[in-house]
């Protein structure tokens, strides 16, 4: 459908908005139009113990296009990871995030790289959102040296220290106390930043969540607990696992907000609201109502505990990428063809990254023993025949 092209303001060859550009990304003219646009979220927010933020979200065409670009890239990356797994280049566990992209992208739009994010094992897109490159991602998934953890972590252990992305954790729920610890460190150093500790509806039943929330509320930590509720904890539906599936209310004394996690703008609004709240009043829980198209991981077909109709229903009605596409088209911010070009470009980006990652070597055997201990203080692990002794501590 061709819409009459409304010439918006200067569209120069601006680089991508988010610092995702690597040697692989092509420069493409994306509208740098920053005239504010107000869009209503799909559904109003429901809140617990607090005033919900307004449904009207301030955004700009530039932001919407960046949402589209980033989400398309994430979607493409996850689908490529799917085929790489099936061709046995990725082994072990691989948990895909397609369907949930709006959460990662909306969150990034509301915060800075100084705020911390920590999440569980479904971390590929969150890592990408924090500034990771496709090469690092595919490298790590395939266990190559070029991966973000040098091939030693794998799919569940992506970290990016300089962007304050703290992973990447395999054990369900264990990242929540870590996240509250990050918030504690932020309060300790008086940073005026916040931590988003993300977990799923399955992890919401972990005791350590409530322990950590209690401590965070007692000590007034700037911690935002984000429950990405995709309604299935592995193969168990939320109504079979939780007596009270209103996860945003589970904080009891801590306020909570329920958000449509398939709407990137709603996510952005909620995260902005949460950041302001946490800096003043301590922890808050955000429940993102989202959905994953793939199964729990690549070894799970995803259709034994839910119907294909349900999956395709959500894909038709609530898909985050499609929603943004429709928004862009109805507001005349770009043509259908431009959006298709973005998708093509993204596809090429991903293919290039995969090709490059495939050529990267496996880690050296000596890497087996590096990074077990930190060498900061000159402490080393020894065998029986060591000749050098002594740690020289300052």
């Amino acid at each position, binding site marked *: 459908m061709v819409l009459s092209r409304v010439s918006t303001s200067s569209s120069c060859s601006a680089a991508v908005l988010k610092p995702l550009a690597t040697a692989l990304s092509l420069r493409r003219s994306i509208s740098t139009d920053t005239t504010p646009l107000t869009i209503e979220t799909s559904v109003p927010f429901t809140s617990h113990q607090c005033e919900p933020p307004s449904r009207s979200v301030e955004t700009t065409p530039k932001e919407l296009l960046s949402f589209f670009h980033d989400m398309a890239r994430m979607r493409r990356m996850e689908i490529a990871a799917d085929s790489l797994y099936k061709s046995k280049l990725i082994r072990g566990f691989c948990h895909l995030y397609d369907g949930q992209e709006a959460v990662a992208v909306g969150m990034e739009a509301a915060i800075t790289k100084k705020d*911390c994010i*920590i999440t569980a094992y479904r971390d590929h897109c969150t890592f990408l959102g924090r500034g990771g490159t496709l090469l690092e991602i595919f490298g790590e998934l395939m266990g190559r040296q070029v*991966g*973000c*953890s*040098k091939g*030693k*972590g794998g799919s569940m*252990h992506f*970290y*990016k*220290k300089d962007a304050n992305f*703290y*992973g*990447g*954790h*395999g*054990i369900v729920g*264990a990242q*929540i*106390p*870590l996240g*509250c*610890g*990050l918030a*504690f*460190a932020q*309060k*300790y*150093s008086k940073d005026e930043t916040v931590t988003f500790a993300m977990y799923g509806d399955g992890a919401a039943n972990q*005791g*350590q969540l409530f*322990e*950590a929330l*209690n*401590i965070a509320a*007692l*000590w007034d930590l700037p911690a935002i607990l984000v429950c990405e509720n995709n309604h299935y904890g592995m193969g168990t539906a939320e109504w079979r696992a939780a007596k009270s599936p209103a996860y945003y209310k589970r904080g009891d004394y801590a306020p909570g907000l329920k958000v449509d996690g398939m709407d990137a703008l709603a996510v952005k609004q909620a995260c902005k609201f949460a950041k302001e709240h946490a800096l003043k009043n301590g922890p808050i829980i955000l429940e993102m109502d989202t959905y994953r198209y793939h199964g729990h991981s690549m070894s799970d077909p995803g259709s034994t505990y839910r119907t294909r109709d349900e999956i395709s229903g959500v894909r038709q009605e609530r898909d985050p990428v499609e929603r943004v596409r429709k928004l862009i088209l109805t507001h005349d911010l770009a043509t259908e063809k431009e959006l298709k070009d973005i998708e093509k470009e993204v596809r090429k980006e991903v293919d290039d990254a995969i090709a490059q990652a495939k050529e990267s070597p496996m880690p050296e055997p000596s890497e087996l023993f590096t*990074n*077990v*201990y*930190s*060498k*900061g*203080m000159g*402490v080393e*692990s*020894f*065998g*029986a*025949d*060591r*000749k*050098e*002794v*002594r*740690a*020289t*501590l*300052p």
Partner: protein
Amino acid sequence: MAAIFQGVGAATALSPSNSIASKKFQLPTRRSVSARKRGIVLVRSDGSLNLGLNSRGRRDQPLITNAVATKSDGSAASTASKSGHEILLFEALQEGLEEEMDRDPRVCVMGEDVGHYGGSYKVTKGLAEKFGDLRVLDTPIAENSFTGMGIGAAMTGLRPVVEGMNMGFLLLAFNQISNNCGMLHYTSGGQFTIPIVIRGPGGVGRQLGAEHSQRLESYFQSIPGIQMVACSTPYNAKGLMKAAIRSENPVILFEHVLLYNLKERIPDEDYICNLEEAEMVRPGEHVTILTYSRMRYHVMQAAKTLVNKGYDPEVIDIRSLKPFDLYTIGNSVKKTHRVLIVEECMRTGGIGASLTAAINENFHDYLDAPIVCLSSQDVPTPYAGTLEEWTVVQPAQIVTAVEQLCK
């Protein structure tokens, strides 16, 4: 080929004046031969030390009359040689902690009752008043999460000291300690270091019951990426605490419930103990006795008897439970050819079991007899006093074992 070592702290201005760990406790002591002096010590590959101390003259003496340092002997030596101050072990830990908190604003303490209460064993007494609520944090009873929080804070660069009120409670935090504390440095490809110290009292106390008498070192020893040390005297307690806080690696510091009131004279100046080093408590010729924490005192008590019977045991406090100081231990084995391990862990899967395996693997050719490992019984620690005594190794058993070994 000689191995060269540098005294700990020699490179800095903080060297201890004298590494004598003399104790004013009623135990026999020898001057500590660990080469923690200033300057360079040359060690030849045959293990003989060239220190200039009188450590080599006793090979043929059947009865060693000066092996038992009496109270007066020890104290005369220490007070004459240096100033210092007398201190109890828990106070030494507190001193070490306080000095490190003064020195580095990133050090903070988290645990149950560490703040306003002053610590259940008084190790953190006075710190909350001095440093405030943000640096000495009273946590709710939630080990899993506050250990996790400590690890998360450590990922950003803070240096928390997490106290388990009793080491046994840290079983609740096992996931955090194993997966996050130990492995994050590796799985992140070196991006994050976890400079956390996890400490607390453990071991068999006085009729505390099974759940409060656990020896966690046997459970934690397989976790890759952590270091484990056990303190046994006020001197090494303070030194190890400081070294642990300064280390970039996660360190678990095992204290013992019964050792908190030991008194010793320690140096006034700033000093640290090498985290990886074993301590030579009493050099000898006939048998190497390896021990740590509370069993050190049982061993030294048995050593008194053994010396009177004509034996010359070499007693090494291994201190570093992970990794083992196989250098010191190896040199000792090469000298005496007989090893006795006395530990408080249970026989199955304890530190002694690992140490036996390590020594067998590496020093098999030097052994004249199989390694004997005396450990606690594989039972939950009973409440009744007599039974509890029999779960742990007693000095009489040590004496018997040495006699058997040296036949």
